């Protein structure tokens, strides 16, 4: 009887399960490794999370939509509840999209959730990319993860575009027609590629089914794979953090994943989901019933793609006319090729930027502390140039709406945009760079002389001075902790020759760093502090002597 009493106390259900799992898959080791991962706290580190969560929402709502959607281009007569389309001839794809909208319970909400979260997904990914760029988070060891993220961004645009076309309504059909035109504009092979894609002449009978296969299988699978790689690399590299007292390239300061971040991130997922649901409930997106089924003859005014394709549409609209020429029997359509080439070059530069900067600086150290954008003036200016270039192309996609809503002349809007596309990025570069340098000078001034206290004192010999208060070390740290790169010279290689590469690198290095502001040195700060102390003593003496 006493034996029963002395039996080891049974662990609870939770502990039992934990032990069971641990003994079989080594959960304790995994939890120890991941649970102790440190994540620093900053709102800008949550943008990538927003993108990831909206992708999860996309998977959930998309799965719902697949239950009711049929990607068939077979023509049917509409017999649903939406009166203004009764008896219209339309594709099965459009009919089932309408049925999801009007007849499936919760279908319209799910469609709107899916579409709004798609827009959010790409937007959040884009903003996340900008954060990574402007804080220099792409530097060693994270260059490859930048490329993975870039691929994810392209995949998200591809996912968006293939999905945009699926309802087979007039709006998306017009968009597909533009893509068809762009493909056909590629010299020599364009026509053949187009008929391969569309299974003959546009629109054909197969393209919706093919886009559907890409949209629900290949592209999401690729996104998942790249997302896994992206996160895996994040775990390997550890997260970056903003520089500050006690935070450097050799450590990482923040909260552990378990339990703080799991709770925060889990909660944030539901917030993102909730916000998407609220917006989807109250705001219409893509009212396909207004557009009617696709028919190649009508083209609606105000036909635009979703925002993430807008910059490409803008590039097409802003292309100057009359540049076509013939090679033999082939027309080389520069109005299509020029935007295509410019867009590809732009994307290429974005993809390889970390390697360019790394090559210019020659910096082989690891960086885990982020730059304040002002402390990398040339990079920030290059970023601003890119953003401005993108923004003008983006605005170019809505020239017609700008013209009607601001009562302007469409042709002049277009011309202004064409000029802006060249001038504004250049202006953005210089303005941003000057602003960064000015901010750096101000920081240096404050670091050395301290903060203006607003206290004006008259010295015995009549001089007025403003007393500066020295900064406390915590505030000072932020102002002086940044890397100072000097322009490098082109040096001869082992054969004693200065290669073209070395020259290019030297001139780029000069372009980046020639007008840099060096951080305030220890000596400068010490001297200034000493000077301040002397002044303060003088002031005190004057006060004591009763003057």
């Amino acid at each position, binding site marked *: 009887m006493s034996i029963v009493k002395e039996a080891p106390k049974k662990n609870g259900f939770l502990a039992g399960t934990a032990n069971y799992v641990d003994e079989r898959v080594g959960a304790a080791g995994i939890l120890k490794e991941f649970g102790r991962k440190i994540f620093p*706290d900053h*709102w*800008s*580190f*949550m*943008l990538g999370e*927003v993108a990831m969560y909206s992708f999860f929402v996309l998977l959930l709502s998309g799965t719902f939509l697949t239950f009711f959607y049929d990607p068939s281009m077979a023509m049917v007569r509409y017999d649903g509840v939406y*009166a*203004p389309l*009764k*008896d219209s001839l339309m594709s099965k794809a459009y009919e089932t999209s309408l049925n999801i*909208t*009007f007849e499936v319970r919760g279908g*319209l909400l799910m469609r*709107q959730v899916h*579409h*709004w979260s798609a*827009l*959010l997904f790409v*937007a*959040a990914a884009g903003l996340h990319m900008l954060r990574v760029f402007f804080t220099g988070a792409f530097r060693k060891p994270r260059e490859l993860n930048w490329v993975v993220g870039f691929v994810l961004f392209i995949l998200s645009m591809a996912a968006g575009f293939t999905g945009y076309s699926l309802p087979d309504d*007039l*709006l998306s059909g017009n968009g597909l027609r533009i893509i068809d035109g762009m493909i056909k504009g590629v010299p020599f092979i364009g026509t053949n590629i187009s008929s391969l894609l569309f299974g003959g002449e546009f629109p054909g009978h197969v393209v919706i089914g093919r886009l559907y296969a890409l949209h629900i299988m290949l592209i999401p699978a690729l996104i998942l794979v790249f997302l896994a790689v992206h996160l895996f690399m994040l775990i390997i590299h550890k997260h970056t953090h903003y520089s500050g007292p006690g935070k450097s390239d050799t450590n990482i300061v923040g909260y552990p994943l378990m339990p703080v971040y799991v709770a925060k991130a889990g*909660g*944030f997922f539901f*917030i993102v989901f909730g*916000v*998407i649901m609220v*917006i989807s*409930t*109250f*705001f*219409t*997106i*893509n*009212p396909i*019933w*207004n*557009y*009617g089924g696709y*028919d190649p003859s*009508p*083209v*609606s*005014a*105000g*036909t*635009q*793609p979703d*925002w993430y394709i*807008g910059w490409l549409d803008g590039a097409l609209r802003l292309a100057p006319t009359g540049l076509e020429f013939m090679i033999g029997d082939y027309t080389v359509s520069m109005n299509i090729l020029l935007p295509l080439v410019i867009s590809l070059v732009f994307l290429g530069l974005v993809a390889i930027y970390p390697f360019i900067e790394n090559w210019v600086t020659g910096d082989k150290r690891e960086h885990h502390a982020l730059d304040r954008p002002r402390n990398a003036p040339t990079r920030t200016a290059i970023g601003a140039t890119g953003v401005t270039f993108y923004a003008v192309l983006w605005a170019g996609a*809505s020239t*017609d*709406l700008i013209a*009607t809503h601001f*009562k*302007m*002349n*469409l*042709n002049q809007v277009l011309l202004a945009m064409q000029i802006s596309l060249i001038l504004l990025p250049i202006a953005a570069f210089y303005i941003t760079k000057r602003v960064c340098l000015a901010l750096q000078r101000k920081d240096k001034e404050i670091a050395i002389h301290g903060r203006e206290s607003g206290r004006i004192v008259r010295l015995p010999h009549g001089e007025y001075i403003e007393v500066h208060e020295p900064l406390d070390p915590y505030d000072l740290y932020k102002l002086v902790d940044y890397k100072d790169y000097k322009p490098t010279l082109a040096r001869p290689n082992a054969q004693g020759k200065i290669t073209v590469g070395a020259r290019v690198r030297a001139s780029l290095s000069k372009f980046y760093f020639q007008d840099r502001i060096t951080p305030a040195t220890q000596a400068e700060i010490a001297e200034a502090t000493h000077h301040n102390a002397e002044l303060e003593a003088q002031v005190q003496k004057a006060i004591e002597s009763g003057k």
Partner: protein
Amino acid sequence: MKRLRSKINGMRRSPRALGIVMFAGLLVVGTGYTAVSASVSPNREVVRTQEQIDLGKKIFLANCASCHGKNAEGSVNAPSLIGVGEASVDFQVSTGRMPGAASGPQLEVKPVQFTLEETAAMAAYIGSLADGPSIPDAAYLQANGNASSGGELFRINCAMCHNAAGAGGALTQGKYAPQLMGSSAKTIYEAMITGPQNMPVFNDANITPEQKNDIITYLTYLQNNSSVGGEELGSLGPVSEGLMAWLGLLGLLVIIAVWLAAKSN
């Protein structure tokens, strides 16, 4: 049989054949067109009293003649109004477009300047000068046609300028196609038959009165039924949706992220 076919082929190759075929074709098209166009402009009985015409002329001389000329013959500033019809006057004046405030790419909709009687009198005066499109028969303005066929006609004939949802669109050099969500059935009909400003004329051979009624039915449906999906964001399509996604959705989430990551004091 074979011989006949070769004979026909022989005739087909003769140099005269082309001329004969062309002549026959033109004859068929010409007589056909005359027959059709005669059949589609029914001479509806127009009631206009001499009193109305006199009043209309008076108003015209006081308000319109400075640009359109004393006898509505037009000037360098404004077109002749002889033959534009009552529908044209009614459309321009009852929407406030006329009298125009300033010369520009396009006449704007403004507060209406004349009463219904005054407008009708002016219309009667202009109508009395020469035949033209008359005020549409109320039978075609009931919005009781087929919305589905109206929608299809609208997308094929109107949407390239007025947008598939009737939200309007830009034309060249500052001109534009206005949005149609506030337009009355009569205004829409009159616009189709008179082709105001940059709009082409959709005469009765092009779109029959019944089809015009269908289009009006479709637009009335759009006017009376707001979007089932919630706030429409101006029916402007992906541009306003993109703006909403960035400012509304992502903006809100960024604010929440700032709040979540804020250090508690």
